[in-house]
């Protein structure tokens, strides 16, 4: 596009822009480094578009308010980091079981506990899958550039609305705080998905109906459909149940409405994989180092490729198996002591060697470190 709006901004602010592009109108949050700029950005921008910003008393209250606002019909989100993400888990479980669309941005920092507040990390990768207690399927996405902060935020909102589920955006401190020039898409350029609303009369609508794609149309409060929402395991009417013939379908629904549609959710970037014998697999800021390392190694004649995961959960296992089919080795780069590598070990066939390059001192992964690892495994 000729007169596309170019702007220099921080990754965190690109998330705010992406959220607004998606039609988000509600933010509730509690300040925490390195995510605070998202709250600050929302407090500035939301009043200008008739939206709502509220600083809650803690992260438990923040996610609760976001769920309430979403049930009232507004696209809503929050942003936090490690300690705050941990506090949100009980109510995130509530959002899973009540099938409430919302987005949580976790700008990851080092942990456990207060950990490394200003330093980069990817150590909440597994928490984004298994944080709340109980059984459910989760969606998480991870951008690696400022531009992708915008596009992945739009995608996260779309996925949450499409599947009636909370979606986590796993940023890391480096992505959240780095600045870059991004081009802001025009209205209509990116798809924006809005939750399906019921069309039948209130007497006919079951709020948690089993539809063919397992996603029940969702009315907002005050739209003529009076319904009940509870965190107790419930039937299609929304009322709590202890019956096996209602519990099985509910939990299967939470799983299958997502896992049956993996193809729609999976997103990967594949570079130089056609003839690659070795593949770097990474996500978030590490992918930037991996892309550079791939380019340098290719110049030196090494048959290496690069796979970047934009969708972390559900884990894109079918795609990875296909893409890596002709590789003999993969190198998994992560800013933690080994999290997504367990998934890779689970899904790749046993004859592919799996090597790890891990960093957990709060510093970024450099292309040199990945190249050294490459040399070591060749």
């Amino acid at each position, binding site marked *: 596009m000729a007169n596309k709006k170019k702007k220099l901004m921080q990754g965190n602010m690109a998330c705010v822009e992406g959220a607004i592009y998606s039609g988000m*109108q*509600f933010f*509730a949050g509690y300040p925490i480094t390195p995510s605070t700029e998202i709250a600050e950005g929302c407090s500035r921008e939301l*009043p*200008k*578009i*008739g*939206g*709502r910003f*509220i600083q*809650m*008393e*803690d992260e*438990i*209250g*923040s996610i*609760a*308010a*976001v*769920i*309430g*606002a*979403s*049930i*009232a*019909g*507004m696209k*809503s989100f929050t942003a936090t980091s490690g300690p705050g993400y941990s506090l949100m888990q*009980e*109510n995130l479980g*509530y959002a899973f079981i009540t099938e409430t669309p919302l987005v949580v941005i976790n700008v990851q920092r080092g942990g456990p506990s207060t950990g490394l507040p200003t330093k980069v990390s990817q150590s909440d990768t597994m928490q984004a899958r298994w944080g709340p207690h109980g059984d459910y399927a989760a969606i998480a996405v991870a951008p690696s550039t400022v531009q992708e902060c915008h596009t992945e935020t739009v995608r996260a909102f779309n996925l949450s609305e499409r599947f009636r589920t909370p979606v986590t955006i796993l940023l890391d401190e480096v992505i959240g705080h780095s600045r870059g020039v991004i081009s802001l898409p025009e209205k209509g350029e990116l798809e924006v998905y809005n939750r399906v609303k019921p069309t039948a009369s209130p007497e006919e609508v079951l709020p948690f109906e089993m539809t063919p794609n397992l996603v029940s149309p969702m009315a*907002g*409060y*005050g*739209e*003529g459909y*009076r*319904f*009940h*929402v*509870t*965190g*107790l395991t419930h039937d299609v*009417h929304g*009322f709590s149940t202890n019956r096996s013939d209602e519990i099985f379908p509910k939990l299967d629904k939470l799983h299958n409405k997502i896992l049956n549609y993996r193809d729609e959710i999976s997103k990967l970037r594949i570079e130089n994989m056609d003839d690659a014998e070795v593949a770097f697999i990474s996500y978030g800021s590490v992918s930037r180092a991996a892309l550079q390392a791939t380019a340098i190694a290719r110049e030196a004649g090494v048959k290496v490729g690069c796979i970047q995961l934009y969708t972390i959960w559900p884990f894109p296992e079918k795609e990875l198996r296909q893409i890596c089919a002709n590789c003999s080795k993969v190198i998994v780069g992560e800013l933690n002591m080994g999290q997504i590598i367990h998934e890779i070990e689970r899904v790749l066939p046993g004859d592919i060697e799996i090597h790890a390059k891990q960093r957990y001192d709060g510093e970024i992964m450099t292309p040199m470190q990945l190249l050294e690892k490459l040399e070591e495994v060749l």
Partner: protein
Amino acid sequence: MATVTKQKSDVVLDYLRPGKKFPSVWCPGCGNGIVMGALIRAIDKLGWDRDNIAMVSGIGCSSRLPIYLDVHTLHSTHGRALPFATGIKFAKPGMKVIVVTGDGDALAIGGNHFIHACRRNIDITAILINNNIYGMTGGQGSPTTPAEKISTTTPFGNVEKQFDPCQLAIGAGASYVARTTVYHTPHMEKMLLAALEHKGFSLVEAVSNCHTYFGRLNRQGDAVAMLNLFKENSVMKGKASKMTDEELKGKWVLGTLHEHEATEFCDEYQKLVDAQMSKRG
């Protein structure tokens, strides 16, 4: 105002949710049912559109109340009813938002949310059913269990100090605060009506009986015996103002304990939005 006077029981039946199974989860004689009846009658008097009412609760016996009502209902997580309700109210300020909570739900696990909802003066009415114990989990001590009383976690008598929910709310900035008991049902209806009509954060503490645990463990008898205790040990605010602290010891002071006019959170935010949007043109 309706011209035909409906029977009280008809009004209650009319607001109960079709399709929701009865009997309720409550023990026969539990005060929660009395609060539910009074709340329904107060709402009916106001003639509010049911589709415009959201009722939010936490976890506990008391928090099961909204489930039976044919309005928008949200049974949330333990202690968190107020922030859930805040999200609904702030997103849709036109809706009437009512919170039903217990002494454990509001004052222990939810204490922080409670004081902040009061401070914000967001237009929500909270009904705190205070039975001085954790009913749902089988009779453990709560922040309002009186000194020396027995619960399953204070088997030798409670050594802790208590919260007075009304004083806490007043101190934190709530703009309407009242206390009533499940014995005083017409009074309860009046207090609820005033709270629902009030613009800003309002709290009604409904002193209630958990005869199953509190009553049994403290030898206070059955539901009727406990209601009699509420009758004997309650003093209306006017009379209480002429009594000494010594005379008021162990008594519940009932009535509108506090009321003041203050700007409301959603209104103030809307002004800010209007100003920002008109700047943009």
